[in-house]
């Protein structure tokens, strides 16, 4: 225990925001520590973007408090803007401008920070320095958006779904970059609906659903606390309707069983005991096995066990 707990970089209390017919954020409390990368994980429509935009001072909450870097939007907006780096979901930067011109423009708004050329180097876009934004690939555009968020040398970085819509290679490249920025005491709030992104980048994760926080902790803590270590999935093919699911729950080491569209998912603590027992039970029920797979439990499984739904059901 350190003698003095560091002041949180972001503290959100009792946040509420409703649009005409939906409550987007419904009484949310959050605390992001200085220097950590904090993930807001949840399906589309969980209220992640609304939460982030309230924190960024772009949307006014119906009620609740936001304290950011020890300041408040009502009184310190100008000072706050200088110290934030913001990447919004699907902003299209002007296609007629070059990468360099775009960054020179954004740099001009800030009192301090790396120059345009330096920011280009930070996101490894040197080769595209004089290319028009319209000619960049999706991954390059996201890296440029990241550079635009970095030109003010921000203390707090908001990244709203930074890798949505990118191919796996471009995503990994962006993750490498974000990992570099996690050094030097910069605080990051990242929203995503990719559990692998949150697991890789975030020290702590809050899982959101329907405008509320339903779980909080490090990815490892969340996986350990909510479900077993392993997931076993199999398909019973045409015979799935005669499968005796309650009998499966009796198998040693099995904690939970979910059956959906002919596929059965089980949370398992001891894989080496549970799998042979499962095979024996299926052969006793005379059900042929068409598919069998196992993986270590992920945040996705945490979400499923908390809500009964998948992150990307939509």
């Amino acid at each position, binding site marked *: 225990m350190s003698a003095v707990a560091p002041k949180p*970089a972001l503290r959100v209390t009792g946040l509420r925001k409703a649009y005409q017919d939906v409550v987007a954020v419904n009484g949310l409390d959050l605390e992001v520590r200085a220097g950590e990368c904090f993930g807001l994980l949840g399906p589309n429509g969980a209220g992640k973007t609304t939460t982030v935009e309230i924190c960024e001072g772009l949307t006014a909450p119906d009620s609740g408090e936001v304290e950011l870097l020890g300041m408040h939007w009502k009184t310190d907006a100008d000072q706050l803007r200088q110290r934030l780096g913001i990447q919004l979901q699907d902003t299209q930067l002007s296609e007629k401008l070059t990468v360099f*011109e775009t960054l020179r423009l954004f740099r001009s708004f800030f009192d301090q920070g790396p120059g345009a050329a330096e920011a280009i180097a930070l996101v490894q876009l040197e080769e595209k320095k004089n290319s028009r934004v319209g000619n960049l690939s999706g991954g390059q555009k996201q890296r440029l958006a990241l550079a635009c968020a970095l030109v003010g040398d921000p*203390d707090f970085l908001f990244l709203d779904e930074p890798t949505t819509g990118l191919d796996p290679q471009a995503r990994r490249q962006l993750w490498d970059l974000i990992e570099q920025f996690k050094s030097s005491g910069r605080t990051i709030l990242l929203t995503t609906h990719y559990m692998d992104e949150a697991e890789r980048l975030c020290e702590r994760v809050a899982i959101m659903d329907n405008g509320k926080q339903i779980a909080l902790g490090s990815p490892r803590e969340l996986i350990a606390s909510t479900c077993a270590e392993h997931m076993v999935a199999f398909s019973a093919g045409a015979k799935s309707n005669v499968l005796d699911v309650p009998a499966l729950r009796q198998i040693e080491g099995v904690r939970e069983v979910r059956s959906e569209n002919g596929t059965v998912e089980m949370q398992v603590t001891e894989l080496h005991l549970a799998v042979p027992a499962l095979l024996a039970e299926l052969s006793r029920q005379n059900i042929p096995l068409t598919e069998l797979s196992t993986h270590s439990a992920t945040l996705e499984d945490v979400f499923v066990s908390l809500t009964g739904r998948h992150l990307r059901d939509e």
Partner: protein
Amino acid sequence: MSETTAIPDLQVRAAERKAPRGKTFAEHPLVQLTVVRFLETLREPEALFWIFAFPILLAGGLGIAFRNRPAEVLKIATVTPEITQSLQKEKLLAVQQLDLPSAEEALRTGKVALLVVAGANGAIVYRYDDTNPEGRTARMLADRAVQQAAGRVDPVSTSDVLMREPGSRYIDFLIPGLLGMNLMGSAIWGMGFTVVDARRKKLLKRLIATPMPKQYFLLSYVLSRILMLVAEVGIVLGFGALIFHVPVRGSLLSLAVVCLLGSLTFSALGLLLASRAKTIEAASGLMNAVMLPMWIASGVFFSAQRFPDVVQPIIRALPLTAAIDALRANMLQGANLVQLMPQLAVLVSWLLICFVLALKLFRWR
């Protein structure tokens, strides 16, 4: 939670922030926003066509179609050398001497408007179709030439003053009209389209997420508009002066004031039209609905006075009418700013109303 001690505290990082150094002129956000705005316009070939090439093509085309032609020379035929000689003094007649059958044939087929032959006792006979205006004109010209050649002296002496000097032709009327139309079009399109497009792409939202002073964004549009204005007005006026010798009789300073005020007024109108629209389609419908009536009613191509007296007060109150009237009065009558006060007052009123409304209604997202 011993690991938190390893993470630098907020205060530590804040202390590491260097004191901001002063910015050079080029690094100023207003300069950067203006430069970017200007570059975007230059890199939009369609916009350049409508702003620069279109008014010139239109002025060139209409100037040629409606040019003032010199009086036409009429063809007539004769059959005797004496008559031919007496008629050749009239410059508006082209005389052909033919034998009688060919001359009659030429008259019948309309190749000549008049046939002049000798009658009995030195008399002259005019043969022509009196339902054809060319025939009647040719007869009058031929008769005057014949009588003068025979020694007639007119009792009253007359002389002609020809009204062909620059300033009263159709092209002189047209160029200020096109200039006004161009001021309106480029300001409204330039403002409206780019603002709505930036809103649609969430670029406006991204910009207000930075410390950019919001008034700089607006101001950069005005500044880049003024830069474009110099080129825009210069090209149309230069074309008119060089090709058609359209005069600028008023002071260039007054003309600049009228153009600047007009452009600002239309920019404010464009900003108002773009203050809420979220799609290009919505904005473009709105802009056309506002501009089309003015193209027709405000006297770009023909005088606004052709409309009935009842609607004249409304037409006079339109910003494009005021702009074009002021431009015409300056260029053709040499009016100064004091004489242009009514038109300038209309423009200033529109500017203030549109600008205040636009600021109230404007949405960044």
